[in-house]
C-alpha cells in the first residue's frame, strides 16, 4: 500500500477544504477503500477521515413524512431500525442482503453509495482498465465477462455498480445532500452515478471535495411499504454481490396498481430505474401478464457486452418474481435469507 497523510478534520468545511486537494480521498469505515489501497488499485496521498464529524450519524424524521439519514449511519444500524425497516422494507432487505454482518456493522450509508465496481479487471492492476487508468483499454470486453453490464455500457467500460442499497433508493426517489467548495446542493441518487461513455473514470457527478452528508427519502416513498421487495440472484447463498437484482414497490388500491416503482441492480454502471416498465404497470391489475410485459419493457434496450446474454433473461425473470412477491405483500419480518429467491420457511435448510 502506498503511504499517505492522515487528517481528521473537526468540521465539514475543514474536511471539504482538505479533500479538494489533488490526491486526497475521504475515509469513512474504509471497507472498500482500504481493500482497494491494499491491492494498489487506488493510492490516495491523503486520507481525510470523516468518521468523527459531528451530526452525520443520525436518522431524523422529516415534517413531510420523509426521513433524513446521516452519511455516517452504519448499514446494519439503518437496516435494524424497526421503524425504518417497516416504512422502507425493500431498502432494509437490500441492506441485509449485502456483504457480511461484520462489514454491515462498519460500512456507512455514504460509503455504500460511492463504492467502486467489483470488475475483476479493475481490481487486477496487471490488466488494462480504462476506469483505473484512462486510455489503457478494457480487458473485460474480451475477457471473463459473464457478470458484466447489459445496459448503458460502452466500448470503454462494461463494469457494473455493485450496491444493493442503491437499487431501492433510486426506485424510491432518494436524494443525497452534498457539501462542497461552493456550498450545499442536492442530487437525486438516480443522477449521482455516471454511465461510462468515453470517460469511465468519472463514476459520479461529485466534484473534488464534495462530501455526501446525508441521504433523504421523500414522504411519498412510504406509500409502497405494504408491497415492497428486493430480490437478488447470487452465485452462492450469502455474502456475494448480485448477478442481477431488482427492487419492486407497488401501491395497490382495490385490486389495481395505482403506482409502481422498479429498479435493477447488477446490470449497469449505475442502479437502473425502469421508468417505462413502471408506467406500463400503473392502472393494470397485478398478475403475470402485466408483470411479464413490464419486465420485457425494462430490458428492451439491453444488449450483451460479452458472455452475458443470459443476464437479460435473468433480469426479466427476477423482475417478474420481485413484482409477484411485492404484490403478495411485504413479509412481516425480513426473511432469514434476505432477498433470496430461494428463501425457505424458518428453520428449514435452504438447500435441502
Amino acid at each position, binding site marked *: 500500500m502506498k*503511504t499517505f497523510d*492522515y487528517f481528521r478534520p473537526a468540521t465539514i468545511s475543514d474536511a471539504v477544504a482538505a479533500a479538494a486537494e489533488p490526491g486526497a480521498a475521504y475515509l469513512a469505515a474504509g471497507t472498500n477503500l482500504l481493500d482497494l489501497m491494499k491491492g494498489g488499485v487506488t493510492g490516495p496521498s491523503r486520507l481525510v477521515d470523516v468518521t468523527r464529524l459531528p451530526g452525520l450519524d443520525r436518522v431524523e424524521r422529516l415534517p413531510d413524512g420523509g426521513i433524513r439519514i446521516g452519511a455516517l449511519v452504519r448499514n446494519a444500524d439503518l437496516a*435494524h431500525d424497526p421503524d425504518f425497516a417497516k416504512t422502507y422494507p425493500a431498502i432494509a432487505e437490500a441492506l441485509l442482503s449485502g456483504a457480511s454482518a461484520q462489514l454491515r*456493522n462498519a460500512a456507512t450509508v455514504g460509503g455504500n453509495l460511492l463504492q467502486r465496481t467489483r470488475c475483476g479487471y479493475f481490481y487486477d492492476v496487471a490488466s488494462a482498465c480504462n476506469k483505473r487508468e484512462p486510455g489503457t483499454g478494457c480487458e473485460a470486453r474480451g475477457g471473463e465477462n459473464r457478470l458484466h453490464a447489459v445496459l448503458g455500457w460502452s466500448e470503454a467500460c462494461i463494469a457494473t455498480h455493485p450496491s444493493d442499497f442503491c437499487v431501492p433508493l433510486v426506485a424510491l426517489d432518494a436524494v443525497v445532500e452534498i457539501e462542497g467548495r461552493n456550498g450545499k446542493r442536492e442530487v437525486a441518487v438516480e443522477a449521482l452515478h455516471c454511465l461510462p461513455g468515453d470517460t469511465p473514470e468519472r463514476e459520479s457527478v461529485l466534484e473534488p471535495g464534495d462530501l455526501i452528508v446525508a441521504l433523504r427519502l421523500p414522504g411519498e416513498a412510504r406509500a409502497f411499504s405494504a408491497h415492497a421487495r428486493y430480490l437478488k440472484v447470487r452465485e452462492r447463498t450469502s455474502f456475494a454481490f448480485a448477478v442481477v437484482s431488482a427492487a419492486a414497490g407497488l401501491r395497490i388500491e382495490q385490486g389495481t396498481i395505482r403506482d409502481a416503482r422498479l429498479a435493477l441492480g447488477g446490470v449497469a454502471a449505475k442502479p437502473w430505474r425502469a421508468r417505462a416498465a413502471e408506467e406500463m404497470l400503473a392502472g393494470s391489475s397485478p398478475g403475470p401478464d402485466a408483470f411479464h410485459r413490464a419486465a420485457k419493457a425494462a430490458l428492451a434496450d439491453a444488449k450483451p457486452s460479452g458472455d452475458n446474454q443470459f443476464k437479460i433473461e435473468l433480469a426479466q425473470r427476477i423482475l417478474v418474481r420481485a413484482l409477484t412477491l411485492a404484490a403478495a405483500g411485504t413479509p412481516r419480518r425480513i426473511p432469514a435469507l434476505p432477498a433470496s429467491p430461494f428463501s425457505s420457511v424458518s428453520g*428449514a435448510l435452504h438447500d435441502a
Partner: protein
Amino acid sequence: MNLSISLTVNGVRRDVELEDPRVTLLDLLRERLHLTGTKKGCDRGQCGACTILVDGRRINSCLSLALSHDGADIVTIEGVSRGDQLHPVQAAFIAHDGFQCGFCTPGQIMSAIGLIGEGQAGDDPERVREGMSGNLCRCGAYSGITDAVLDVQQSLIEADQRRRA
C-alpha cells in the same frame, strides 16, 4: 503528523505510537500488542478470521485503519474467558466440534459473540447461518459451528425465561 493513539484492549488501556499511518487494527493487535489470537486470513474482509469486537460490534479488523479507531474499546479472543473459565461460546464450540484445524476459530467465536449480542438470529438455524456467513471455514465445520451458536442461544433463551418466571 501525530500518530499516537489510545485503545482499551480487553479492558486494559494501551497507548500506542504508530510509525506508519497504514497500520490496520489487525496488524496493531498482532504485531504491536502481540495478541496473535486474532488471525490474518485473507486480509481483505472476505474470510472473517480477523473478526474482533469494537465498541461491542463485530467488525473485520483487517479493513479497519488503526488511526481511525483512536479511543475505541476492543475485545479480542484473548479477552473473552474469565481466567480458566471459558466463555459460553468457546465451551459450546468444543462441545459441538465447531472446528477442525482451528485457524478460523477465533474469528468464528468473536463473530458468534457479536451475532448473539445483535439479537437478530434467535434459535433459527437459517438466521444463524446467514448471520455467520462472513466467517469462512475451509475445514467445513459449519454444522458444528451452527450447533454451537444455537446451543448458546437456547441457553440464553432458557435463562431469560427463568428470569421472567
